[in-house]
C-alpha cells in the first residue's frame, strides 16, 4: 500500500467514538445534569466577575435604610446595617466556591497520587499505606477540625488544608481500588508483556481508566466541602467577618429571620441551588461514565 493511498484511506476512515465522547453524548441527554452544569458555570462566572458585577460596595452601609425587603434599588433587599444583600451574596459566593474548589483540588491531588502508588505497587507498600488511611479514617475529623479552628483561629488557608486533608482519604481509596482492579486486567498485563516502562503503563494505561470515578467523586466532593464550610461558618467557627460566606450569611439570617426572612431565604437559596447543581451534575456524570451503562 503506498503512503498516498493509506492517507486517502485514513481520511475516509470512520471517526471512532471514544468512551469520553460517548459519555458526553449521554450526559447531554440528561436534562438535570446539563441544567446543573449551566447553573454552575453561571455561578463561577458571577464569582469571577463579582467586583464588576456587584451593584454596591461590599462594606457600604446605609444605617438609615436598615433592613429593607427586596426593591428596585436592592434586588434582594438589605441587611440590618443597610448593606446590599445581592452584593454580599456575590462576595460570599466567591469564598464558598473557592473553599469548595480549592479544598477539593487538594484532596484530588493527594488522593490520586497516594491511591495510584498504593494500588500499583501493591504488596507491603499497599498494606502499610492503606493501614494508615484506615487509621485516619477512624479519626473523628469533623471534631478535630472544629478543635483546630478553635485553637488556631479561623484562618481560611487552614480551612482549605484541613478540609482537603479529610476528603483525600476517600479519593485515595477509590483510586487505589480502581488501580488494583485495572492492574489485574489483561490489557495491563499485555502492556507489561510488551515491555513498556512502569511510567508509561501508569500514565497511558492506568490513570486514564481511573478518571471516570475520579471525576464523579470530585464533583460530589465539592458540594460536601462547601456544606462543611457553611456548617463551620454557621457555628461561627469558619469564615470570620469582615469576610463572608453563604454559611455565615445564613447564620446571620437565622438571628433575624422572624423580622427579615429574606435575609435567611436568599443566602439559603444560593447555597441550596449550588448544591443541587453540583449533585445533579455528579449523578449525571456517574450515569454517563459508568462502564456498565456504556455498553448499550
Amino acid at each position, binding site marked *: 500500500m503506498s503512503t498516498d493511498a493509506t492517507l486517502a484511506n485514513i481520511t475516509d476512515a470512520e471517526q471512532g467514538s471514544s468512551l469520553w465522547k460517548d459519555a458526553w453524548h449521554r450526559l447531554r441527554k440528561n436534562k438535570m445534569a446539563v441544567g446543573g452544569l449551566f447553573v454552575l458555570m453561571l455561578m463561577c462566572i458571577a464569582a469571577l466577575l463579582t467586583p464588576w458585577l456587584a451593584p454596591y460596595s461590599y462594606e457600604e452601609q446605609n444605617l438609615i435604610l436598615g433592613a429593607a425587603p427586596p426593591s428596585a434599588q436592592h434586588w434582594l433587599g438589605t441587611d440590618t446595617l443597610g448593606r446590599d444583600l445581592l452584593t454580599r451574596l456575590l462576595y460570599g459566593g466567591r469564598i464558598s466556591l473557592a473553599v469548595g474548589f480549592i479544598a477539593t483540588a487538594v484532596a484530588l491531588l493527594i488522593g490520586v497520587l497516594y491511591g495510584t502508588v498504593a494500588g500499583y505497587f501493591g504488596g507491603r507498600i499497599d498494606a502499610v499505606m492503606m493501614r494508615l488511611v484506615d487509621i485516619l479514617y477512624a*479519626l473523628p475529623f469533623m471534631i478535630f477540625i472544629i478543635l483546630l479552628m478553635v485553637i488556631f483561629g479561623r484562618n481560611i488557608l487552614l480551612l482549605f488544608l484541613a478540609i482537603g486533608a479529610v476528603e483525600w482519604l476517600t479519593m485515595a481509596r477509590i483510586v487505589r481500588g480502581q488501580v488494583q482492579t485495572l492492574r489485574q486486567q489483561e490489557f495491563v498485563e499485555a502492556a507489561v508483556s510488551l515491555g513498556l516502562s512502569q511510567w508509561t503503563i501508569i500514565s497511558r494505561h492506568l490513570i486514564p481508566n481511573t478518571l471516570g470515578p475520579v471525576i464523579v467523586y470530585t464533583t460530589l466532593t465539592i458540594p460536601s466541602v462547601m456544606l462543611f464550610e*457553611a456548617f463551620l461558618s454557621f457555628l461561627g467557627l469558619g469564615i470570620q467577618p469582615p469576610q463572608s460566606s453563604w454559611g455565615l450569611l445564613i*447564620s446571620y*439570617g437565622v438571628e433575624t429571620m422572624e423580622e427579615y426572612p429574606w435575609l435567611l431565604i436568599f443566602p439559603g437559596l444560593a447555597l441550596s441551588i449550588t448544591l443541587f447543581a453540583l449533585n445533579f451534575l455528579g449523578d449525571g456524570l456517574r450515569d454517563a461514565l459508568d462502564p456498565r451503562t456504556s455498553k448499550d
Partner: protein
Amino acid sequence: MGRFILQRLLQAIPVLLVVITATFFLVRAAPGGPFSAEKAVPPEVLKALEERYQLNQPVLNQYFSYLGDLAHGDLGPSFRFPGRSVNEMIFAGLPTTAELGLYALLISMLLGTTAGVVAALKPNTAQDYIPMSTAMIGICLPSFLLGPLLMLVFGIWLEWVPVSGWGNIPGDKILPALTLASGYTAYVARLSRGGMLEVMSQDYIRTARAKGLPEWVVVIKHGLRGGLIPVVAFAGPAFAGLLSGSFVVETIFQIPGLGRFYVQAAFNRDYTMIMGTTVFFAALIILFNLLSDILAVWLNPKLRQQYSSHSG
C-alpha cells in the same frame, strides 16, 4: 467472629491513643494559655490557677497524668466552670443528645431504607423519581438551613409546633429530630436504592423468581439482605455525622445537650472541656464504626466464615 471483634477492638486502641495525643498537644500548642484570653489576670492569681490545673509542670508529665486520669475515666476539671468536672458536664448533656440522636437514627434508617427500596423496585418511574427527588432536597438543604426554615414555617408562621426547648412542651421534639434526620435519611435512601438495584439485577433474584416465589418474598428475603449491606456499613459514619449534626440542631433549637455544650466550650476556649468531649466523641464514633463493621461482616456468611475459620 470473636476473633474478628477482638482484632477490631485492638485496632481501635492506637486510633484512640492518636486522638488523645493529638488533642492534648494541639491544645497545649494553642497560642496563649487558657487564662490569657481576656483581661489581664494578676500574676499571682495566674500562678495559683496554673498550679491548680498543673500547668506549671513539664508537658510530658501533664500528658502522662492526663492519660492516667483517662484510664480511670476522669476527664479532668473544667477551666471555665470552676468546681465542675468535664465528666459531670458530659453526663448532664448526654441523655438529651442520645435521645435526639436515637430518634434521628431511627427515622433515617427506617424512612431512608423504605424510600430507597420502594424506589429501587420500579426504577425510572414515578415511584422512583418522587422519593429520590425528595432525597435530593434532603441532601441539598443542610440542617442549619432546614432547621430555621422549619422553625419559621411551622413554628412561627403556622404555630403548629413549639420552636425551641426539649421535653418541656409536647411536640417540641419533632422539629429537632426531623431536622437532624433529614440529611441522613436522604443518604440512606440513596444508598439503599443503589444497593437494592444492584442486588435485584443479580442472577440469584432471577432464580428466586423462577421458583415462583411471591414478589414480596423475593424482595424481602432474597433482596433486602444484600441490598442493605451498604446501609449497614454507612451506619458508623452516619453516627459520627449525626453527632456533629447535633451541634447545629441543639444550637438552633436551644436544646441543652452535649452538642451545644461543645460549641459553647469551643467559643469559651474551655480547653479541658473541648479535650474531654473530643476524646469522648472519638471513643463513641470508634465504637459505632466497630459495631457497624461487625454487623456488616455478620450479615455476610462468606466473611463470617472467613473470620471464624481463622480462629480455628
